[in-house]
């Protein structure tokens, strides 16, 4: 999810374990300082953001948020306990500070006092508990249910909230920055998930799902050096060409995604700046490791060598990205394995692995739709061309976009997927690679990998931990079922009147979806 992780910028893991506000606070100040040094942000103006996603069937319920429209709405209207800063480090937001027990299973968060909601309500520790409880319990319909499931108990002590976890997790503060978990006002220990209230930088004036939303600045906002616009407008424009037209003709100031086919032409338009942020977003072609022929690792290796990664990055991403090495850790992340050999297109080696598997040619179907990632079907077509040289005949089956995630993904043996990435290596691996994890899309099960994952989660020694994560990436790359050919940058564009800080967050699009709070007009 983030380019740099937890420990970047010299903040030690133990420091975060203690979670002293001093460390987070230092990071916050330094990033603010950097911004001021570059250009003095000025107040005023209406930011008009055009977004590619957003459906009429979206909902106010935080448990249902999944597309860029709702997530940008979330960060414009709400605050969270913790915040991922532009440099990828974790900083306090509504939690002033936090502290963990030695086994990292009990966490005490001190909640900031005097934070005012748009309605005038003042944030309490009970609000925090109620906001999180909304996602928990057996009847939870929240997409965030698995992330908060390890919380076994929440107790309030004044402005402190004490969390008890089922087992130690050093990355718990990162979990609380998840976009599903905004702090909402509560009444009698319950929040109204459909509320339009929030304590974030802007308050909703008007909102219609699938169409757009308008906001005005929250004058009681507790951060003094943030939220520079007077008003914000979110507009959903599904069609790539229409979105680019709106930017070129000045009807919007920012578009959250540019069409990669024509971004080189967009760049030439006067007054338009293309913004590319490389993060941990990656596109994959996961194979079901239980199903033949993918159950044989030699076949998986043959397929991994039969794909021309560079060609995909050049053609599908138009160069806006980097080649992947069949594991989900991005090159900017702390424990990125620098010693791992980069796999490249090598038909001879693919043939060698085919021979090892005891076959000399292979016929397989791959099921793709552009719902998996933009250009997935085209990527499959290119792949089938290069694989043919290795004696592998890949038949690309185009599946309907509609229902892709419920009918194809994790249902058919070979398909496409994308991951926004996770802020820490542990979260990424335990979400999609650990045996039995709900989103283990390759149904992969590797004993050594699972052992390492558990050990690394609790390991405090830097070097040992690095060694473990290195080995996990190695295992994943050489034995895993995930074929990850490319890491895709977030490519958007904006008018040159719009300014941003020195660093743009890479955990999500739109400056970590905090564009309304962080950017300003020159």
């Amino acid at each position, binding site marked *: 999810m983030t380019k740099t992780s937890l420990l970047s910028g010299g903040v030690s893991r133990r420091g975060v374990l203690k979670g002293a506000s001093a460390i987070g606070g230092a990071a916050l100040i330094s990033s603010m300082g950097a911004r001021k040094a570059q250009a003095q942000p000025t107040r005023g103006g209406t930011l008009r953001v055009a977004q590619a996603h957003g459906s009429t069937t979206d909902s106010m319920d935080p448990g249902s948020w999944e597309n860029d429209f709702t997530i940008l709405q979330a960060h414009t209207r709400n605050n969270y306990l913790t915040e991922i800063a532009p440099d990828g480090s974790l900083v306090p937001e509504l939690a002033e500070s936090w502290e963990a027990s030695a086994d990292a299973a009990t966490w005490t968060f001190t909640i900031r006092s005097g934070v005012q909601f748009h309605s005038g309500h003042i944030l309490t520790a009970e609000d925090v508990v109620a906001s999180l409880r909304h996602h928990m319990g057996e009847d939870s319909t929240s997409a965030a249910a698995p992330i908060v499931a390890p919380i076994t108990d929440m107790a309030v002590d004044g402005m402190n909230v004490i969390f008890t976890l089922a087992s130690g997790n050093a990355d718990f503060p990162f979990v609380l920055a998840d976009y599903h978990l905004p702090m909402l006002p509560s009444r009698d220990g319950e929040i109204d998930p459909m509320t339009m209230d929030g304590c974030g930088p802007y308050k909703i004036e008007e909102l219609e799902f699938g169409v757009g939303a308008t906001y005005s600045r929250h004058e009681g906002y507790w951060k003094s050096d943030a939220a520079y616009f007077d008003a914000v407008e979110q507009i959903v424009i599904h069609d*790539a*060409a229409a979105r*680019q*037209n709106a930017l*070129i003709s000045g009807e919007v100031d920012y578009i959250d995604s540019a*069409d990669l*086919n*024509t971004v080189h*032409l*967009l760049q030439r338009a006067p007054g338009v700046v293309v913004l590319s942020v490389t993060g941990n977003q990656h596109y994959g072609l996961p194979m079901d490791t239980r199903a033949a022929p993918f159950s044989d690792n030699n076949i998986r290796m043959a397929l991994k060598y039969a794909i021309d990664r560079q*060609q995909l990055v*050049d*053609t599908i991403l*138009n160069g806006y990205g980097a080649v992947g090495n069949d594991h989900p850790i991005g090159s900017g992340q702390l424990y990125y394995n620098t010693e791992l050999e980069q796999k490249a297109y090598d038909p001879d080696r693919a043939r060698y692995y085919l021979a090892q598997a005891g076959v000399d040619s292979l016929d397989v179907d791959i099921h793709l*739709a*552009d*719902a998996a990632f933009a250009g997935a*079907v*085209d990527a*499959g*077509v*290119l792949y*089938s*061309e290069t694989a043919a040289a290795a004696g592998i005949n890949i038949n*690309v*089956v*185009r599946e*309907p*976009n*509609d*229902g892709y995630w419920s009918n194809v993904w994790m249902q058919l043996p070979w398909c496409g997927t994308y991951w926004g990435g996770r802020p820490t290596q542990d979260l990424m691996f335990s979400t999609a690679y650990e045996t039995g994890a709900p989103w283990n899309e390759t149904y992969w099960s590797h004993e050594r990998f699972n052992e390492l994952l558990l050990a690394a989660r609790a390991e405090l020694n830097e070097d040992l931990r690095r060694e473990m994560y290195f080995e996990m990436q190695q295992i994943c790359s050489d034995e895993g079922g995930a074929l990850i050919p490319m890491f895709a940058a977030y490519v958007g564009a904006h008018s040159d009147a719009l300014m941003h800080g020195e660093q743009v967050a890479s955990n999500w699009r739109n400056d970590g979806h905090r564009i309304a709070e962080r950017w300003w007009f020159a």
Partner: protein
Amino acid sequence: MGFLTGLFWFVAVIAACMAAGWLFRTIAIAVTPKGVKKELRTAPLTASFGMMVIIIYIIVAVFAPLIAPFPERMVVGPEYMPWDETHLLGTDNLGRDMLSRLIFGARNTVGIAFATTALAFLIGSILGLLAATVGGWLDQALSRMVDVLMAIPALIFSLLLLTIFGTSVITLIIVIAVIDSTRVFRLARSVALNIVVMDYIEAAKLRGEGLWRLITREILPNAMAPLVAEFGLRFCFVFLAISALSFLGLGLQPPMADWGSMVKENATLIAFGDITPLLPAVAIALLTVSVNFVVDWQLHRASGLKE
């Protein structure tokens, strides 16, 4: 100045088309047997041009692998290469030769469109004429059934059906044909309704003509004109249907080339004034115009007007 140049090219293109049409007619008259010769002499230049284009399309479609400089699916270079000697029309969004894709596209697109339209007319006009002639409960039953099918928007209906039944070429043809046939049914029925109240139908009935004979000998010839006109249009609507479906991610299976999807794949370029996406669109337009020119000629003959 720009206007004058534009006008010049416009006139030049039309003149060239007419000249080609004339040439084609002259040659065609020279090489065809007597009966056809006589027919062809009545063809206006537009219809001759139309026939020429259709024949060229058919030749291209049939001999696509021989004509195309590159294979249908081969990646020959980087994407969006400009026009040059090797790649006469440049390359597409994946670096495949545009000209070759267009040529193979002729085969897939025209074949599918023709099969679909023919099927739609077969179903639609037979049922429509039958309903109008027989009337009564059959008319009611068929009309209500068609009403129900037509009351559901075509694009959404085909989206539903294709998601349920899968997207092979055969299902695509059947789904679009069935949806299209409801439109044909309505037209055929309403035209025939006006005919069945005519006196000569009454007379034919009194003569004791059978149902099939009544439909094929008495009603169909008189309902032919609007049906033929409709055929010309429906034919081109199939391209559009495929194109719209590929807009929703449900078109033909890759890497098959078809013009509808090709327009979609390259469409964003038009916003920057690049004419590459116009090529498949022009290929569709040229065929549509040609087919309809020929249809108009036949329509004119069918109407019995002598001028």
